[in-house]
Structure formats: structure tokens, C-alpha cells
């Protein structure tokens, strides 16, 4: 990972997103799909922490060599600030961070599933898989048609593509997870990749475990540092030997995980937990049985 002062080349509106192109050759050179960037906020703000964004594009060749793209969905103060950044401003960027998606060695049929801004890394992945001669099929979704990430580009890259929106304003109504079982059959998916909201990822995980399809998901967990220092971004992941689980950092041991090993209930806060001992104002360490 590198820390760079990256110039903003452009900010383009894209439906519900703003796509920022920045100049960061050292980062672009190494960036792989699934990895992310961390961007510092401006000084004197009440919001201090860096914000994290999946790498949507890294150009290593041609006229755009050395540039990176990421897509921002403006929600809170940090993303709103970024969406309004002016070209030629410099950003304090660290990247590439985290573990990328692994490419399949032998298997060829890759089904890529995304919802919302999860489309940013998935679209990058589609491109890289295609470059490796894989067959790519895609399921793309979002809250409204504005949230469906780059459907035209997806059509160009994918063999087949289906779209679902929560409000039915584009493609089928509902979640991409509803279309998943059918799609897996239809395209003969051998590997599934997914990025997007937890509920959707969890359903992807369940289906893939059930059908024994190898899969990888890119998660988002709140990150204070994004660089492995603070341990605020952990995800409960079952150990390889099955002897329990560990809290792994989404920023360094992720954000790409094997969904079969994630303790989804626990991660999503639905595990039946013992009532917390009275913290009396101080946090309490709770031991979590493996």
C-alpha cells in the first residue's frame, strides 16, 4: 500500500453515484478488483475519519495510465463532500488496501452479483475476468434504476445479464438474490462473486453453500483506519480447521471473504447473545463461545 497525494481529474455524475477519477500511478499499478482506497477528509471538520471506497477501475495502459476510479454514493457528510470535490483538487489517498478477489484457475463460468455501489468493484472484476478469458454473467440490482450500476457496460462485458430493482423501476422487482437460483442454473455458474448489502450477500452465501459453488464476497464493515491498525472492522470468520471462529479484519484479511466461512447471524447482530453484564459506563469484554 502507498500513500499518495492524488489529483482529481474528473467527477462524473452516474445515476445515484459520482465517479471520481484520480491520478495515482503507484496505486493504479498494483490495484486489483476487490481492493479499496481510503481517502482523507478535509481539515477542520466534525467528521474526521478517512472514508473507504472500492476501486472501480485502474488504468495501467493507454491514455489514462496511472489513473484510478472509484464510485461514491453520497449518503452522509463525507461522501457528500467527495461528490462535490472539484477537479484539480488533491486528495490524500492510501491504497490499494485489502485482499482482492481471487481469479479461478480452471473454472470458467463466473456469475457476478451486485447491488448498489457493490457494482463498482464487480464491474472492475468482470473486466479482469474477461481479460483472462472467463465467461462472465451478471446480476445487477439496486434500490431504483438510478442505483443500477453501469448496466450498459455490463451488457457489453457479460454473456447474460439480469437486473432487479427494489422499486421495479428497472428489470425485475425485488432483489438480485431472488433471481440467483434461476440464474445459477441458467448460466451454469461455476464460481459466484458478489458485492453489495449484507442481506443480499448472505442469501448468495446460503445458495452457494447449498449448491456447493465456490464463491467470494466483498464486505463492507465500518473501518476507522482501513490499514489494519485499529481492529474496529472485524468480521467473525470460522477457522479453517473448524475449531471455532476468529475476528478477522475486513481491511486487511478482507474485504473479500469466502462467504461459507462467515458467521452471518453473528456478524449481522442477530445471534442470541447473553445479556451484557452491566457496563456501568465502561465497555465490557464479552467472550464469545466459538
Amino acid at each position, binding site marked *: *500500500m*502507498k*500513500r499518495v497525494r492524488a489529483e482529481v481529474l474528473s467527477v462524473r455524475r452516474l445515476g445515484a453515484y459520482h465517479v471520481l477519477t484520480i491520478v495515482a500511478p503507484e496505486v493504479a499499478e498494483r490495484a486489483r478488483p476487490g481492493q479499496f482506497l481510503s481517502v*482523507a477528509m478535509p481539515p477542520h471538520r*466534525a*467528521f*474526521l*475519519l*478517512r472514508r473507504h471506497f472500492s476501486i472501480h477501475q485502474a488504468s495501467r495502459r493507454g491514455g489514462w495510465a496511472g489513473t484510478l476510479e472509484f464510485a461514491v454514493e453520497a449518503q452522509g457528510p463525507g461522501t457528500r463532500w467527495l461528490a462535490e470535490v472539484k477537479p484539480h483538487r488533491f486528495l*490524500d489517498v*492510501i491504497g490499494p488496501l485489502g485482499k482482492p478477489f481471487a481469479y479461478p484457475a480452471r473454472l470458467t463460468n463466473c456469475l457476478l452479483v451486485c447491488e448498489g455501489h457493490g457494482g463498482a468493484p464487480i464491474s472492475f472484476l468482470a473486466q479482469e475476468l474477461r481479460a483472462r478469458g472467463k465467461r462472465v454473467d451478471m446480476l445487477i440490482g439496486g434500490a431504483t434504476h438510478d442505483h443500477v450500476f453501469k448496466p450498459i457496460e455490463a451488457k457489453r462485458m457479460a454473456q447474460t445479464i439480469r437486473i432487479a430493482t427494489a422499486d421495479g423501476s428497472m428489470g425485475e422487482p425485488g432483489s438480485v438474490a431472488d433471481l440467483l437460483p434461476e440464474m445459477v442454473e441458467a448460466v451454469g455458474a461455476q464460481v459466484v462473486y458478489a458485492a453489495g448489502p449484507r442481506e443480499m450477500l448472505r442469501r448468495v452465501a446460503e445458495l452457494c453453500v447449498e449448491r456447493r459453488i465456490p464463491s467470494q464476497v466483498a464486505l463492507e*464493515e*465500518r*473501518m*476507522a*483506519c482501513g*490499514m*489494519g*491498525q*485499529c*481492529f*474496529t*472492522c*472485524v*468480521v*467473525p470468520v470460522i477457522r479453517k480447521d473448524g475449531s471455532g*471462529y*476468529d*475476528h478477522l479484519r475486513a481491511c*486487511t484479511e478482507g474485504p473479500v471473504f469466502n462467504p461459507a466461512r462467515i458467521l452471518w447471524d*453473528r*456478524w449481522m*447482530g442477530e*445471534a442470541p*447473545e447473553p445479556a*451484557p*453484564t*452491566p*457496563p*456501568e*459506563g*465502561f*465497555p*465490557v*469484554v*464479552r*467472550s*464469545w463461545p466459538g
Partner: protein
Amino acid sequence: MAGVKPTMTVDLAGVAFPLPVLAASGCLGTGGEPTVVDLRRLGGVVTRSLTLEPRRGAPTPRMAETPSGLLSWTGLQNPGVEGFLVEDLPRLEQAGVPVVASIAGGGVEEFLRVTSLLQHRPGIVALEVYLGAPDEERGRGRPFAARLDRAVEVVGAVARMSRLPVFAKLPYLEPDLVETARACVRAGAHGLTLIGGVPGLAVDAERLRPELAAPIGLLSGPAIKPIALAAVHRVARELPEVPIMGVGGIATGRDAVEFLLAGAWAVQVGTAMLIDPAAPVEIARGILAYLKDKQLESPAALRGRLRVPGTSP
């Protein structure tokens, strides 16, 4: 103007730190992770608090951003002493940075076992006893520092065993901060680290849930700077001979100078390093610039120089 060339070395309880700026506990992993932080340019590294066995810590979510602050609780996640000695210490040692081992435990016995495993290891120059750790033995999960007798028991036991200088790290306490600090020193602590965050809650009004699973976390970052400064000032005024590491919301060289003026002997940087991994380096540079500007020879020259009106300087 005669160019004074300040020396930045500070001596705390017989330990010479090359710079008065250390990485605070829990904000540099265990210290062994690859990071953009240049370890060689730190005055020292306080490790993540270490327990005897590995701990998995608290469930997620573990953090929330608050106005000018960070609320977090990781629940003492750490690889255990053995994990630390094997995985992390070698890299810290190689970097040649002074290591302060932060020790924790659920009870007195665990603190002692951790102490015994760490105190002979080369590279470790001091111990920091984390009294914000939950007392699982007698405190129903409240921190050791919440009970004076328990704080004294732990600090006393560690200090009696330890061959290294021992710093007692206190969370924010009100109104008994000075009393507890004094008791820790009487019990044998060679120095104090003030402060370890302030308990806080963040609420997600949409989901009707606390933002943190814990649900209470510790508030850190610039928001708590005035609180930490007051803590350092109060204790330093009462215990001027005791080395104090000031910590809480330090993000700039100027912030660090404020802590030194209030009575700290050195400072630690936590949250700021999560945002800007080079923060400690910049902070040290800022202190140096201030010393030069004021024609002072060392950070020690600032110590407690705060002139409170109506008291002699």
C-alpha cells in the same frame, strides 16, 4: 537570534525515548503489521493491550464516528502474549523503536503472568498497566480503575514483580482521578498514562440500536482533548515528580505542546494515527519547531510551564 538546537530526547522513569511522541496502545495493531507508519520515526510504540491468551474481543460493529471524535470498543482483541512475542515483537525490535508493552488481564494473576513473560524480552523498555481493562475477577466487568482497591492491587503486584518501569494507564475518572493516580504511584507505579478515553454511546435512530455492539464504547480523538488536558493538568499539579504520558485527542504539534505545558513529560497519539499514519512524525516536528521558536532546549523545558493566573509561574 542564537539558534538553539533542541534535543528531543525525553527521560521518563529512567527510560530514554528518542522523541516525546509515542504511538498509543491499540492504534498501531500489535505493532508488527505492515503499515504506512515509519516505526523508526516514532519515539516509541505502546503495544495493543496484551492478555495471556489470545482474545477475540467484542463483536462488531465496533466503532462509530461522533462529532470530532471516534467511539470504539474492540474488547481487548489481541493475539495473546505468545502470539505477540512470535509475530510482532521481532519486527518492532528490528525497527529499533522502544517498545512499551501494554498489559491487561481479567484478574491480578493474569496481569502477573503477562508481566513475567514480557519483562525480560529485549526491546521492551517499560510496561503500561491498562487499568481500563474489565475486572472479570471481582468487578463484574467494570474496569480495574473504577475501584481504587483493585487498581492498587493490580499496579502494586505488577510493580513488585517488574524489572521494568511501570506506567499505570487510567481511564477518565470523575471526581477521583487524582486520588486514584496518587494511589497507583504509592502502590509502586513509576509513571502514569492519562487518559484512556471516556465512555460514550452512539445511537442509530433509524434502526433503534446502539451503533456499537458493546454497546458502550470509549470516546477518543479531538473531542476529548480538553478533558484529557484537564486530567493531565490536575494530576501533574499534584504529582509533579511523576512522569506522565499525556494522551487524548492529540493531532498536531501544537496539541502536543499544550499537553507538555499542562504537565505531560511525553505524549501518545492514538486516533490521529488512524487518520494520518504520519501524524506522530508531524507532531514531533511541530514540537521541535515550537521549541526552536521559543528558544528552548528540550521538551522537558515545557513541562508544567502553564502559568495559571494568581499562582506563581
